[in-house]
């Protein structure tokens, strides 16, 4: 069950599960998916803290929040408020971008960072795309780019409640707010990734067609201390498509 916590005046929905060393989980643009298996799998070994980003689900998006910088400071505030110590920071896709922005600002409360198919950096030249334009694809194309098995990613919106649909619609708009231009990256992030002074793990989906191979290599080069794990049978959302393999990788068993 989610509780609502006020951080810097922002009412955030936060799910907390399990016991053990703390793990802050930052969700992808698709939403938290607290009813799906990955949080429970992580909660077997960790105290999982999973906020819903402002604008998604039931978390408010105040007018003054408008950039990934804001989200980074918001979650650093959350880590302070919870007095996290030696926590694992996990971010998937858009959440990975936020996690990296946090770590270049302050890694004090974290012992390691796990970035699963993170958005957020620019690697190739100005006329090459690192991150596919997810907003220029039909629903079918998007699923084919995002999933190893597109059938797994299909969500029947007609079955959702109005409140759930409002959360979905709000999240879609918020993702655009934070990532429309420059598209899903911050040109100023990559030069600062050297500030991430803690162990890092990069998780990739073998069938991810959103992120180019050059882009993934760019992350590995920018984080020389990082270990990389590629999960078979997963696209852009390894946590969703292969939750067991994802949880094992986060625990360092991958």
């Amino acid at each position, binding site marked *: 069950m989610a509780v609502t916590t006020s951080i810097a005046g922002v009412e955030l929905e936060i799910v907390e599960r399990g016991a053990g060393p703390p793990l802050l989980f930052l969700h992808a643009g698709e939403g938290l998916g607290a009813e799906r298996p990955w949080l429970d799998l992580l909660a077997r070994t960790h105290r999982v803290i999973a906020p819903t980003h402002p604008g998604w689900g039931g978390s408010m998006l105040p007018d003054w929040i408008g950039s990934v910088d804001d989200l980074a400071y918001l979650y650093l505030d959350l880590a302070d408020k919870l007095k996290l110590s030696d926590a694992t920071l996990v971010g998937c896709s858009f959440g990975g971008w936020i996690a990296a922005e946090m770590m270049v600002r302050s890694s004090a409360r974290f012992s390691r960072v796990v970035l699963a198919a993170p958005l957020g950096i620019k690697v190739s030249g100005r006329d090459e795309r690192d991150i596919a334009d997810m907003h220029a694809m*039909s629903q079918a194309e998007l699923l084919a780019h995002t999933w190893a098995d597109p059938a797994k990613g299909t969500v029947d919106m*007609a079955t959702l409640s109005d409140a759930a649909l*409002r959360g979905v*619609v709000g999240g879609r*708009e918020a993702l*655009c707010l934070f990532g429309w*231009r420059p598209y899903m990256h911050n040109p100023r992030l990559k030069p600062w990734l050297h500030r991430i002074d803690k162990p890092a793990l990069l998780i990739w989906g073998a069938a991810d067609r959103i992120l180019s191979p050059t882009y993934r290599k760019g992350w590995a080069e920018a984080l020389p201390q990082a270990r990389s794990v590629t999960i078979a049978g997963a696209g852009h959302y390894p946590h969703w498509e292969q939750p067991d393999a994802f949880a094992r990788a986060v625990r360092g068993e991958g």
Partner: protein
Amino acid sequence: MRVWYFSEMAYHPAWDEGLKRGSLRVVYPNKVVDPHDAHKLLHRYLDEFAYCDEAGLDIMVNEHHSTATCMTVSVPMALAIIARETKTARLLSLGNPIANRPDPVRVAEEMAWLDVLSGGRLEMGLVKGAPYEIHPANSNPARLMRRYWEAHDLILKAMSTTDGPFSWEGEYYHYRAVNIWPRPLQQPTPPVWMTGLSIDSGIAAAERGHVIATLLSGSVAKPMFDAYRKRAAELGRTAGPDRFAYAACIGVGATREEGLKRAHLIADYVRTAPVVYEPFTNPPGYNSVNANVAMLKAGPAGRSFVKDRKGNAVDHRTASVEQFMETDTVFAGTPDDVYQQIKDFNDRIGGFGHLLFFGQGGHLSHADTMDNIRLFAKEVMPRLKDLNAGSAKRTAAE
């Protein structure tokens, strides 16, 4: 009632191929354009606009980008030419898609310059723009209307401030010295127009006293105009018909068949305009949360439909001219027919003062376009001039 002729200066030679590909916009490569054909068409369309001045019609220009349906890429550029070629027509920019413009002060400068050039004939539309304009402009669809209103306020301040420069440090726009030269001839600003589809747009326009225009759907116009009138009344103002504009495809002929045939060709505009690749039809944030929730519940079948007067859904992409007449998208027939249809529509929606006359939709020939304009101006327009002023008296006499 004032009548404003407009056409989108279509590049219709590319329509068939675009329809086959399923998108006439954004992702339709421009190698299909023969620039020599485009050259001839642009001159032809500008001649048609110029003729409206002789015929006694006012003129409206709009713009779109990256599309075979509309070659007008810049309202101010087209109006600059038309302003020099015309003497009396009022010139409506409908308009500048200001939330997609990086530089609102440039918009204010261009509009003021046009007003001066035309001797104060400019009417200035500040519009949100269609959803498929978001990608070509790469403008953020999230918080689009917040950006729109900031640009709107800045443009009006730039045009009406005479003791500048002033500074602007807003959420989206930053200027240290705004002081446009020349200032507009119509003070404090030329008349301001908006476009809209929703009750919220009607209310927003009412609060500012702007003209509100809507296109091609009677079932959309009525609730929006009603909301405007209600909000204006709450604010202690009377919203006369001159606050309301409605765009329809109009085909006039010597016979009913000829009028319908012309309207059928003009209505190809309505059939082609919505043909755009799915992801560009509704970028997240462009529509309200409530509207998007309703769309998700309706599924893909809910798109591209309007309602006719009996409440039946009509698909714009495939509708016949007769179906379009049922949705008030088309007025067509002899001059008597067209007058009667406009009068009936005017009565149904409570009176509107501006008819936006879609008189060229692609395949209608130059000769037919000119004759359509001529017949409308000569046979229909004189009867519309005092439609709202005298409608009660005429109804009583009938």
